[in-house]
């Protein structure tokens, strides 16, 4: 069970710099809360955030605090409650809460606000970010590129598909990087990306995935919370490759899931947490690129023996290159 947990190895170069082992500050007194849009059992976006605060709690002994199912209209109220109590770190998990987070960050300068954000870094990104000293827009970037690169190697029919749940930033961010990623490893492959229109209807997702597989697509991955599990099921049933996403989902479909690609939020928020503790807090865009290891890849779970050796090597190679920045600034 332990190995099913996402890899929480720290980013190699933490933005906050190394934690000084000699620091005597009692980190367990830090007050951290995660405010979530859905339930922590959604196998996706919210669960990974839960894992993050769980990780902090396990490692540093802070009190584990989170709230689920928060409606957009209620978020400001939740934030206010914790800000009033001078929480050190308030994780507002989802870009739909952007407005509330910005408003509250201005109102409560004593707390540090982390808005979990999904965004692509390009020219317009800066316009999205407001300059509030105690608000950081936190998230990994370029996950799609990594996923796409692996998919490009895996495909035999040169047809790969990635399905998002809904057109929301945390998902769009990934979807928009897929094609670029595939091109890094495969110039010919047909790349299809689209949205399922649901985050919960796993049956529908499975049928949709089957439709793609029947059309010859032989590598599939999806980002749609619980619904994505339906896509993984479809891959296993039809004997095509799949990539897990968010958590290490090998267990869901061991015969299909070659690797899982994970938002490394546990490590990211550990990093941010330490930066607050260290007084090295950074506001604004706090993005974790592939180089920063904002995205991690799971264990092979034996697939490195099952796959043709050249594919395994190619995948290992491209991951390494992406992490090193050899293929561009991802």
């Amino acid at each position, binding site marked *: 069970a332990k190995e099913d947990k996402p890899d929480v190895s720290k980013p190699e170069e933490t933005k906050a710099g190394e934690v000084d082992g000699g620091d005597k500050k009692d980190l367990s007194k830090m007050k951290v809360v995660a405010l979530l849009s859905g339930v922590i059992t*959604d196998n996706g976006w919210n669960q990974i955030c839960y894992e993050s605060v769980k990780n902090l709690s396990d490692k540093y002994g802070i009190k584990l605090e989170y709230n689920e199912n928060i409606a957009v209209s209620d978020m400001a109220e939740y934030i206010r409650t914790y800000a009033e109590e001078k929480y050190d770190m308030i994780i507002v998990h989802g870009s739909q809460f952007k407005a509330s987070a910005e408003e509250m960050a201005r109102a409560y300068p004593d707390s540090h606000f982390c808005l979990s954000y999904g965004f692509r870094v390009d020219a317009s990104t800066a316009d999205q970010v407001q300059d509030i000293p105690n608000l950081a827009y936190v998230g990994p970037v370029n996950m799609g590129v990594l996923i796409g690169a692996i998919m490009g190697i895996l495909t035999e029919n040169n047809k790969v598909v990635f399905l998002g749940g809904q057109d929301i930033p945390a998902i769009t961010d990934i979807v928009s990087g897929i094609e670029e990623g595939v091109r890094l490893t495969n110039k010919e492959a047909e790349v299809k990306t689209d949205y399922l229109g649901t985050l919960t209807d796993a049956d529908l997702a499975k*049928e*949709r995935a089957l439709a793609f597989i029947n059309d010859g697509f032989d590598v599939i991955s999806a980002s749609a919370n619980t619904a994505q599990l339906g896509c993984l099921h479809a891959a296993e049933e039809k004997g095509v490759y799949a990539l897990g996403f968010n958590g290490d989902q090998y267990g*869901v479909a061991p015969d299909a899931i070659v690797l899982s690609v994970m938002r490394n939020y546990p490590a990211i928020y550990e990093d941010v947490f330490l930066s607050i503790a260290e007084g090295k807090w950074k506001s604004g865009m706090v993005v974790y690129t592939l180089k920063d290891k904002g995205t991690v890849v799971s264990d092979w779970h034996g697939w490195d023996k099952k796959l043709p050796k050249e594919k395994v090597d190619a995948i290992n190679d491209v991951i390494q290159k992406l992490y090193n920045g050899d293929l561009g600034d991802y």
Partner: protein
Amino acid sequence: MDLLQTIGGYLFTDIRMAAPVLLAGLGLLLMNWSGLLNIGAEGIMLIAALSAVAGSHYFGSVWLGLLLAMLAGAIFGLLFAVLTVTLRANQTVVGAALNILGLSLSTTLNRVLFGIETTVTKVDAFKVLEIPLLSKIPVIGRAFFAQMPIVYIAFLLVPVIHYFLFKTKPGLNLRSVGENPRVADTLGINVYRTQYLATIVGSTIVAAGGAFLSTGLLDFFAEDMVAGRGYIALAAVIFGKYKPAGIMVAAMIFMAGNVVSNVLQVAGIGIPYTFLTMIPYILTIIALTIFASRAVAPASLGKPYKRG
């Protein structure tokens, strides 16, 4: 030949997707024929979907999971019957509350039963049962004879329920309650018991539809995984003119909307996915407007019956 193969594939998918809606529709049909209008199918299916996974997990057999799901459905049905039959409460309001209860209770219990794990608990699930020879028939063979047992059950229930409703004495008695409970009463039929039975049995069938969603195609529970199928089943009953075969056709037509969405998305014509999502619902509305006016509901559907 290739085209035929493709059509066979669509049919295969359509039948499989129609099965849960069909089951829910058949369950609702029994309730409707007893004069009760239950819009709570969505909630019943949700709690059943969870129970099926729980049963399959704890007892290690998907069939026992199905049994537990049906039991959960029966309990919801009993609750509905107590409130609407005995206390004569507004059936729509109670149905709506069942939906709220099904959604929230399944979410809560899911957590209690399975805790918080990144990977879902895998349980025993239904497997495809190929019927020898028949499944080899070209084009339609796989569509009809290489499905999961619960799909066969759903479709076999169509003639069974038809036979029950229209060819047996208990079926006639049930229909008489839905048409005119007072008449049934004067003829010695226990109206309340009939309505209770119809609701409980009907709810277990609806629940089987819910169980299919979590342990048929899949092997886990997800919050709100029913995603409107309970309501579509409700429409299927009207569209199917309160006959099992009609419901079967309706379920297949409505779910064909999803098949169309799949095909359009795979074809990549560039229709925004939000519009693809709407297709089955728009199809349902159109179908209803064309056929609803000709549907003859049981005469006392939705009206509470007061004895004496």
